[in-house]
């Protein structure tokens, strides 16, 4: 799968370069580069009765993002190729987004390809590679794509309809996603086809008033059975119906930054319904080039563990509450420097983290 993704990423990059080379073909082509360098110190205290403490510190280069966008009239193309360190030290090339769009007007934009699922506020407002635009150092756990550990399906392959309804002074906007949906596990994004032919359907509605956004979404998908795993305990013999309901509120207008969102995720099988609740609240206030901020995020998993997430990392640490605070400095439009402290209390351990990040975007 990684090889396929790598080939697709290279093909997409080549296609855009060729598009750009064709004189007069594309009216506009933007090329961007985004990335960040981090340093963090962590102290993990295990709650297994031993009170074992593990200290760690290190530099990291989480992502390098090559961004391409072209447009000609109402048509546009966008791709985001990520050089991503997912697990261990291997640098993986990932095609995070590849979208073709046609814009009929404010009321309808049709997009096909791989895009960020229209869930909540964060997932579409802050694409993974653009750390320079994020207020804290990382995306919150509920949509954190590293190690495929996000709780909601952050990316999907299919079509998206987006627009503003022509009522209430165009303050109501909608997104409809129809896509392949989940694969057999959360690290199996159905890029090349659909395992079970049933499609994921997601609807997001928002009301916007002078920068204030209030919205909700409802999603349904059918997850195919997972069989033949190396560890038979990870097999999941039934089709699961996944339902995600969410609410979000955001006011991100200079100098304020306020975001709140919450999700109920249900995995429904023939004999059980498992519920996970997750969410976040984030606050910031900009003074000149400095923005102090704070974030709280949490998740509550089923006591017996959710069968869908058994092979991946979502519930490794059990229920958690994470509280972080930091400062972001923006010396100019291209750079951001962040310093952050976090305490993340989970059932398995408590992690304390001090981190700093220099992020760029051109």
């Amino acid at each position, binding site marked *: 799968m990684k090889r396929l993704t790598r080939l697709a990423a290279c093909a997409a990059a080549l296609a855009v370069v060729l598009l750009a080379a064709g004189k007069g073909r594309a009216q506009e082509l933007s090329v961007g580069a985004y990335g960040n360098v981090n340093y963090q110190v962590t102290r993990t205290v295990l709650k297994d009765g031993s009170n074992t403490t593990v200290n760690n510190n290190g530099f990291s280069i989480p992502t390098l993002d090559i961004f391409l966008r072209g447009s000609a009239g109402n048509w546009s193309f966008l791709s985001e190729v990520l050089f991503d360190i997912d697990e261990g030290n291997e640098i993986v090339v990932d095609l995070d987004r590849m979208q073709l769009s046609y814009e009929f007007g404010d009321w309808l934009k049709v997009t096909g390809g791989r895009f960020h699922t229209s869930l909540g506020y964060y997932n579409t407002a802050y694409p993974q590679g653009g750390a*320079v635009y994020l207020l804290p150092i990382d995306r919150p756990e509920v949509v954190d794509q590293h190690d495929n550990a996000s709780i909601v399906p952050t990316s999907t392959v299919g079509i998206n309809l987006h627009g503003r309804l022509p009522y209430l002074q165009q303050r109501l906007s909608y997104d409809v996603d129809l896509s392949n949906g989940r694969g057999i596990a959360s690290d199996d994004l159905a890029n090349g086809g659909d395992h079970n032919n049933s499609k994921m359907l997601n609807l997001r509605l928002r009301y916007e008033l002078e920068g204030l956004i209030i919205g909700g979404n409802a999603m349904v998908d059918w997850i195919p059975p997972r069989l033949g795993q190396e560890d038979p305990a990870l097999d999941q013999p039934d089709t699961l119906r996944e339902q995600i309901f969410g609410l979000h509120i955001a006011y991100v207008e*200079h100098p304020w930054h306020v975001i709140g969102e919450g999700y109920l995720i249900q995995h429904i099988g023939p004999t059980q319904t498992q519920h996970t609740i997750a969410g976040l609240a984030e606050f910031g206030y900009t003074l000149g*080039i400095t923005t102090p901020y704070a974030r709280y995020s949490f998740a509550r998993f089923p006591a017996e563990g959710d069968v869908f997430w058994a092979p991946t990392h979502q519930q490794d640490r059990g229920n958690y509450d994470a509280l972080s605070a930091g400062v972001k400095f923006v010396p100019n439009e291209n750079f951001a420097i962040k310093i952050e402290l976090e305490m993340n209390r989970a059932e398995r351990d408590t992690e304390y983290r001090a981190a700093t990040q220099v992020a760029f975007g051109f």
Partner: protein
Amino acid sequence: MSQRGFRLGIILTSSLLFAAGNARAGDFVFIKSAQNDTAQASKEELKEVFTGKKVSWKNGQKIEIGIGPNGSAELKWLAQELIGASEDILLAKIKQEVFKGDMKKPSPVASAADCFALVKKSAGGICLVDDASAKSLPDGAAVLKYVK
């Protein structure tokens, strides 16, 4: 200084600052294509235009914005007027919208001539020129009235 003199000083200074603020707000003018039948736009509408939330005019023409280079008086004025922040913050917001995929990259407009060329080329074009340049508009360009 007597109390009366002090009061007079405060009043004079306030009047000068007020006058300077008004003069500055009138220094720049939004330019659109003559083919665009939108006559006026509010601050909120223009903010939506320049931050990518609004992609087309009422007549369906696709919006194409032009902005001056970082450090230019036009961009400073635009940022202060529409979002009450520095041009770095406005540019970062625009770049973020381009990165999200919600906005086309703005066309660079280094002079009034560039702005006029943009709106002549694109029926949905919009950009900013100083008051003096707006007094002698070429064919194909028109003023978009800014309603505060």
